[in-house]
């Protein structure tokens, strides 16, 4: 669609309406998206936040009035909330710690070249592609004492005294979700750490300041343990042969 008025108004003085139309033009173009975002995201967000200060119970038609900070006062004395908070910390801490440890082990194993390494890397990354819902369902089945193999294996190994359902045992139940989450989260740590290790190796041939890291890096004959390698610098990604590439400047 052509706008001959726009061309004309460029030379003559613009009317107030014209200036308004020019300023509003980008807003009109983005209006469909803005209306959608406001309608399906911002309005529900503000409504949801307002619920925190209102007495909203779906099955009680007389609820809906403002109660101020009553919910937060009740929350401060809610024992179940503090238990949930402790469980969250324990679950998150144990999951991330174990994911990191096993991910680091896998990354160090995959760091060295061996036959079938590409296939192994692809397989290691596979659990990450499983939807969390399916992973949880699968592990619930695996832990099931009737149809799942894990309780029987653990009983045979002597970890459990009998093939009971650990998900029904108050003292062991948290280990079920932790194990499932660890299985699901290891690939992310493994691939991230593997990428970091390989970035380290790309920079490790470059001479650096005389530090412990630089000394063990200077000779490629005795490579650094991974925790001593220098952090990757932008020059690690330069194509080899360019003046700042790590290989051309090494001694």
């Amino acid at each position, binding site marked *: 669609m052509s706008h001959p008025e726009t061309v004309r108004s460029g030379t003559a003085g613009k009317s107030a309406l014209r200036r308004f139309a020019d300023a509003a033009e980008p807003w009109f173009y983005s209006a469909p998206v803005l209306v959608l975002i406001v309608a399906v995201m911002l309005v529900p967000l503000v409504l949801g936040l307002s619920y*925190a*200060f209102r007495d*909203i119970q779906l099955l009680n038609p007389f609820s809906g009035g403002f109660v101020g900070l009553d*919910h937060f006062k009740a929350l401060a004395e809610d024992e*179940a909330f503090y*238990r949930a908070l402790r469980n969250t910390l324990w*679950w998150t801490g144990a999951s991330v710690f174990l994911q990191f440890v096993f991910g680091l082990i896998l990354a160090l194993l995959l760091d060295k070249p061996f036959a079938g390494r590409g296939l192994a890397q692809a397989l290691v990354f596979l659990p990450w592609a499983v939807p969390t819902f399916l992973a949880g369902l699968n592990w619930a089945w695996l832990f099931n004492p009737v149809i799942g193999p894990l309780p029987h294996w653990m009983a045979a190994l002597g970890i459990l005294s009998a093939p009971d359902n650990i998900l029904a045992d108050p*003292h062991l*139940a948290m280990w079920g979700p932790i194990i499932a989450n660890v299985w699901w989260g290891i690939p992310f740590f493994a691939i991230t750490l593997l990428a970091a290790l390989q970035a380290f190796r790309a920079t490790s041939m470059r001479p650096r300041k005389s530090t412990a890291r630089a000394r063990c890096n200077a000779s490629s004959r005795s490579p650094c343990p991974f925790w001593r390698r220098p952090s990757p610098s932008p020059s690690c990604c330069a194509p080899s042969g360019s003046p700042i590439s790590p290989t051309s400047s090494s001694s």
Partner: protein
Amino acid sequence: MTNGGPADRTQIVASYIFTQAFRRLDFGYASAIALVLLVLLLAYSMLIVVIRQRLIEKD
């Protein structure tokens, strides 16, 4: 997996919010918990950002 598990032993904050909202249908209380969780996570994230910034400046 466990729906909060035996006697709330596997209840985390997120699942507690879900329980309050969609099982007890108390949306007001659930929203209040969610707001508290948001504030806690914001505080934790800001702490991490500040610590990281300090470490980077020191390096």
